[in-house]
């Protein structure tokens, strides 16, 4: 079942987390993981646990903050939110990914004969 799913490239998860937090506001780890799965149409191979390494990395870079809080259904959970410098980083990384994927599309759509 996993074979048909996409393996995550290095660094892409961090970007997804940032984007998710930017879009949804403060969110706990499970929420972020679920959201990424949903947004990707369950196309991404994600062990939900992997998210936590990404979260601590982003935290150390100062791009997200964290605080313990209470979830909708009254459970204690750690909530993450994007910081100002996180938003800047997100803009930068998103632009980079956009360019990269454009390039990939163009390169991969080269005609077999090598014409221009």
């Amino acid at each position, binding site marked *: 079942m996993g074979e048909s799913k996409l393996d995550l490239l290095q660094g892409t998860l961090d970007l997804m987390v940032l984007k998710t937090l930017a879009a949804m506001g403060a969110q706990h*780890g499970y929420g972020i993981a679920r959201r990424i799965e949903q947004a990707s149409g369950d196309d991404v191979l994600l062990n*939900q*646990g992997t998210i936590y390494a990404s979260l601590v990395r982003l935290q*150390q870079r100062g791009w997200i903050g964290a605080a313990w809080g209470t979830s909708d259904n009254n459970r*204690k959970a750690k909530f993450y939110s994007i910081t100002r410098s996180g938003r800047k980083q997100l803009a930068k990384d998103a632009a980079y990914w956009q360019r990269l994927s454009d390039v990939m599309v163009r390169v991969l759509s080269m005609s077999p004969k090598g014409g221009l």
Partner: protein
Amino acid sequence: MSALRRALSRLFSFLRKPSLDDDLEAEIAAHIELATQQNIERGLTPVEARRQALVRFGGMDLVKDQHREARGIMKLDILLQDFRYTVRTLSRDRSFTIVAVLILALGIGANIAVFSVVNTILLRPLPFPDAERLVWIAPPPTKCGLSCATYSTDAYDEFRMYSRSYQDVTGYFAFSSPGNLDLSLGGAPIPATSIDVIANFFQVLGVQPAMGRVFRPEDGNNGAAPVIVLSDAWWRRQFNADPNIVGKAFDMNGHQTTVIGVLPRTFDFGAVFSPGAKVDALTPLNLYGPPRDYGNIITLIGRLKPGVTMGQAVPDAASAATHMCWNNKQPQSCYQYIGAVVPVPLKDYISGKLRRSLVVLWSAVGAILLIACVNLSNLLLARAAARSKEFAMRTALGASRLRIVRQLLTESLMLSFAGAAVGLALARALVSWLAHQGAIALPLLSTLHIDGAALAWTLLIAITAAVLFGLVPGLRMAGGNLHDTLKDSGPGSGQSRRHDRIRSVLVVSEVALACVLLVGAGLLLRSFMHVLDVDMGFEPQHAAAVNVDYDDSVPNDKTGELSEAGRGVIFQQVINRVSAIPGVQAAGISDYLPLGQNRAWGMPWPKGVKQPDNVHGSPLVYVITPGYFRAMGTGIRGRDLTWDDGPKTQNVVLINRSLANFFDKYAHWPNHDAVGQMLGDGRDLLIIGVVDDVHEESAEGDAGWQIYYSALQNGPSGAQLVVRTTLPPAVLASTVLRTLRDINPKQAMAEFRPIQTLVNHANSPRQFFMLLVASFAGLGLTLAALGIYGVISYSVTQRTQEIGIRMALGATMAKVQRSVLVKTLRLALIGIAAGAVASLMVSRAIAALLFNTAPSDPITFAAMVLLIAAVALFAGYIPARRASRINPMVALRNN
């Protein structure tokens, strides 16, 4: 900035590791619960909901590891792991660890100690504020000793007035003799040494008193109440560190003298200006009292104005010199200082002469460190060979190459730091021992201690050493081919052969380095032996000197004749009484002793011969009594003084051979014989004898010109009684002192100094360097021998089986032994050849430090080469013996 924050937060999270782990646990628990809850809401059973949640979460331990790695504790974790692992392996291999740490401790310890010496004498500024602005002002060296290195009081005043480069100029009286201050506290006076300094001395140097005050200008005026400033050491020793000493008065030289201050521990006059001598106190020099017009008596020290360079100070001093007169009342004495007023940085004056020796010393310990590192490399390689499978296995199990190199590096660093710690303790002991060697005439030695710079140096050396000795084994081990290593069954196969080769190269370089050290030490040792062989012009053994106090003052003695006569009576009595003591062979008095202070009175000249203009320098003057030459063991041609050569008879002198020969060049005396000829210096001086040249400044230098006057016809500046005896001098000390006190109750409890100590003192810097270099060479040789032993012994162990087969096939014990020894000799000879070539180059660099010894001295080279070869053979003999004792049956059955 953000990198810093990340590093901080990583460190922070490492320190908070348990709580962060708990945090993560809680977070994961919350995650699972949230997921389970949602799954239940989607209609799953609670059990299935939880199972699905766990599946989606993924491997719990992997997540925790990833999390930890991300938050940065992984590296520190690994470091701790490496550390613990290293401690375990090192403590398992205890003998290796002890040997390695010991070798490093010796190498690093020697380096720290020598660095401290170099730092104290050469690198660190002098212990004064803005010390780089202090200069020593003196003429270029000439033939008349201290008298030509000093200035008159008039010249000092003029220099101070006409020079523009200086904030202020000060100086001190250069002719104080040791024991010139008699402190009376009731009993017999206690001798101490005090130096007269110009009142602004401390202001110019920038020395603040630890207690009380230093001198004010009025302390040096005529009729000022006598005051004194104590050195820290004397204050502690003599006055029990009395905290209320300031203001107290003591009887010193018969005057009630008030202690006005105590100097800080950091200022030791002797250590800076007269190395190896002890100066207990400083007293103000009265520039306008009796010493006025005594001639050249003051040593000048100046403090440059801020921003003034030496380039400006030198011409400024030269122009001031044109205004300076020896005595302002004698116009013909002006201009004599032209060309003789040259400032040099005080630091250069004090330690410049030692620069070369210290650099040599520093290089020697550097070589020691290299040898130690090579040795350790070798030991580690031997270990590496034994551990190669362990590391191959670790690689096979997934350890990265980096991880293994890191592990090895941790090991090297730990060994190195352990060695450095032990070495630091060794160096501390050595340094504090050196600091208390008052007899070594090296400047600032008493201020020697391990300071921050030395600690930093230790750290640097430890890390450098670790990299040096850890690199080769590390690369070798990490770089090995996994399959080969695992297949390599050890003895005789590829990997160990390669190890062997590297180890041989290491040993050869070790031997070469030791060879260079030994040759250098050998040359210095030979020079030192030559110095000891120098005929000093006197016989230092079986003689001793003691300072005699006497009072020859006669009231209203206009011409000085009365006191001269009185002095004759006192001296004759002293010498007769002392000569009568059993065991005393001869006794005599001189005011100055060789290798100590000296002075000159200008140049007398043969009567009736025109003195050319180009004669520079003048003979050193000694004022002596009959018997002095016999007591010193100096040979006379002609006759000695007698007690009849008194104030009313013909003035007589003795001159040394060099001066006699010099005069003869101009006077062309009959038979070139000076005895019986007449000199003139305003008076007529009859030469009654020619004496041996006495080495005045040092054993190494030329003996200069010397002239000896009678103490009954001239004023001596003190009296040193020299006693020659058949007994050990120390035995006589109390009897002689009792006799002197009998004659003069005011005689101080002066020190009875064997003449040999004067010579030893003069030779002490050379001896100091020679001993240090020699002990480093010995250390180097030992380490090299250890290295050879290690390699040969290891190769014998590796080849046990092979040797066993050979013996089974008929090789004799002797043959096996010979083959091992040949291998040893081959290694040693290659090393020696390389070392000898290097030594030839190095010895040329130290040529300036040698005395009567050629840098390529064949005897030294041959002796050292033989010594190394012998030691190498011995180091190889032990394993060779073992090899020849191998029992073929046992060797073949093993493995």
